[in-house]
């Protein structure tokens, strides 16, 4: 009945981050590290527990599969170490994206003056606190020459020097953009400006809790606008810098969108899962099924958007059929004994078909069970998406999915949850003086 107003729960609610949970998360993170160690040890002995993993003997035969890399072959045949570095790089990029999408979400909702989202704003606000961890890891991996060479083909000595035997004309042509000083400026700028932009938005939001009034809302909105201008450009450039340049010869004009879409929908799914888990524990009573429905529509819409962008990129390359472009998909289909075929296709199923079918109906977007299924599918699916973006270029014929992958992901996920939960516990779960909170409480669609 329309005139029976919802019962308004209290806006005072605080998330308690229990010390027991803290301990468990830290233990889980350590278990992840141990798993990586065990997995590496087993693999170095030639034992494989994971799937699509190579056994020691096949290593030599893999080299000729991909013609594009044959010119520089031998110099950087992939090793087990490369696989570990690839895992760290890939998870860093993935979790960096999930984290920063929290700030992105708040920024566009502020700019659009959206009211409905203000009751779930604190969840999004807590996520970017993790930006700093993968950010620093990425900077360290780039700063150390040994790991940098594994990840980034273009950083090899002499590759841009015409006199050198490793000279590569195509890569040398990109030297104005792909040089270490400029790369570091960009990488550090992404991490710091994203982090500081979030800090500013967060600061005004917390001040608003104390002071009330509209002043901090306007300041938060201005901070959002500035963040958005920066993020609009860096979302694309970071996609090139963190993922596309791994396959240095190859480029795609769709890649920035594709990468951002991947980050965005994974971030939204993480947000949804966090909200549902908080609700399961009795928090976030203001969030009703209309909020879930709206966020569910976001996830549904952006998983379709991801597919659209992914397919546009694929179709253009498929149509044109230029060897320098198709090599990217060749590596993922048949390259390296076809070991990336499964991750590539699993990513499509988990990111498009499954969430598309399960979240299509209105009622399923209002039911926590379906939303959880959809969110988990998207989160795992985009893990596979980043896996197939990074692994063929870094781990090459050493790729696989085994204990190392599970361990690295476990560590990153535990740390992410730790940071987000920690940040959530620092403030009230609702922005209690937010001008749109009242509107959000009565959200009904």
């Amino acid at each position, binding site marked *: *009945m*329309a*005139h029976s107003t919802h019962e308004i729960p209290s806006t005072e609610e605080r998330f308690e981050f229990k010390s027991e949970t803290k301990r468990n998360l830290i233990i889980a993170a350590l278990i992840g590290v141990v798993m990586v160690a065990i997995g590496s040890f087993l693999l170095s002995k030639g034992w494989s527990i994971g799937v699509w993993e190579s056994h020691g003997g096949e290593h030599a035969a893999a080299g000729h599969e991909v013609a594009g890399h044959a010119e520089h072959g031998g110099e950087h045949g992939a090793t087990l170490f490369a696989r570990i570095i690839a895992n760290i790089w890939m998870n860093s990029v993935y979790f960096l994206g999930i984290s920063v999408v929290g700030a992105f979400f708040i920024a566009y909702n502020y700019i659009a003056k959206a009211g409905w989202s203000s009751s779930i704003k604190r969840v999004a606000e807590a996520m970017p606190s993790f930006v700093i961890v993968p950010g620093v890891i990425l900077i360290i991996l780039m700063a150390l020459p040994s790991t940098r060479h594994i990840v980034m083909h273009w950083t090899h000595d002499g590759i841009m020097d015409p006199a050198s035997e490793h000279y590569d004309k195509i890569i040398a042509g990109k030297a104005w953009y792909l040089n270490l000083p400029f790369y570091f400026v960009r990488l550090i700028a992404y991490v710091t400006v994203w982090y500081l932009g979030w800090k500013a938005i967060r600061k005004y939001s917390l001040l608003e809790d104390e002071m009330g009034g509209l002043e901090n809302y306007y300041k938060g909105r201005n901070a959002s606008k500035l963040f958005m201008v920066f993020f609009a450009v860096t979302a694309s450039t970071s996609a090139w810098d963190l993922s596309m340049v791994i396959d240095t010869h190859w480029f795609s004009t769709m890649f920035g969108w594709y990468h951002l879409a991947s980050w965005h929908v994974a971030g939204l799914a993480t947000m949804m899962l966090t909200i549902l888990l908080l609700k399961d524990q009795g928090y976030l009573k203001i969030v009703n099924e209309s909020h879930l429905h709206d966020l569910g529509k976001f996830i549904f819409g952006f998983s379709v958007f991801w597919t659209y962008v992914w*397919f546009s990129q*694929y*179709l253009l390359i*498929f*149509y044109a*059929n230029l060897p320098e472009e198709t090599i990217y998909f060749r590596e993922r289909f048949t390259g390296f004994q076809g070991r990336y075929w499964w991750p590539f296709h699993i990513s499509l199923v988990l990111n498009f078909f499954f969430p598309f079918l399960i979240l*299509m*109906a*209105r009622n399923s977007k209002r039911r926590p069970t379906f939303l959880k299924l959809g969110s988990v599918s998207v989160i795992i699916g985009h893990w596979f998406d980043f896996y197939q973006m990074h692994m063929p270029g870094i781990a090459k014929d050493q790729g696989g999915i085994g204990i190392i992958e599970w361990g690295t992901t476990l560590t990153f996920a535990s740390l992410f949850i730790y940071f987000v939960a920690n940040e959530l516990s620092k403030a009230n779960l609702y922005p209690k003086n937010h001008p749109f909170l009242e509107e959000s409480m009565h959200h*009904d669609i």
Partner: protein
Amino acid sequence: MADSKYLVGVFDDGDELLHAVEDIRHQGVKIHEAYTPFAIHGLDKALGYSFPRMGVAAFLFGITGTLCALLLTFWTMGVDWPINVGGKNFFPFPTNIPIVFELTVLLAAFGMSFTFFFMEDLGPTSKPIIFDVRSTDDKFVVAIDLAKNKLSETEISKLLKESGASEVNVKEV
């Protein structure tokens, strides 16, 4: 529709109409339809409308489009007049996706629109009944078909007045 007699309750405020609709439906009065200058939140629920099954129609029209497009591309490109394009297969799946997508969307959109026009009697020949012309301006109108109600005209009129109608008119169509 000839010789139907309607009782038309006119309200000055959307909220009043909403509550009146709830009240008189609670008294067992069947409402023909409510007319308002703008959408009123919750009125569909108050009138007892079930959630529209337009989504099902959309899905059926959409899947028809998908199948038609697949058949079209398969027949033309794969069977009837195969053309060698850059050495690809005669029926390469990715090339069909744009046309499959377009026809799915096209049939779903047209199908939904025409279903809506048909169901709501909005065809070019249909003549809508205007119960009160002010319902497009500042009045909120509820129409009750007397033939479909057990209560008498005076009783319903009294109920409408009690629940806040500023005037109650009779309209014969």
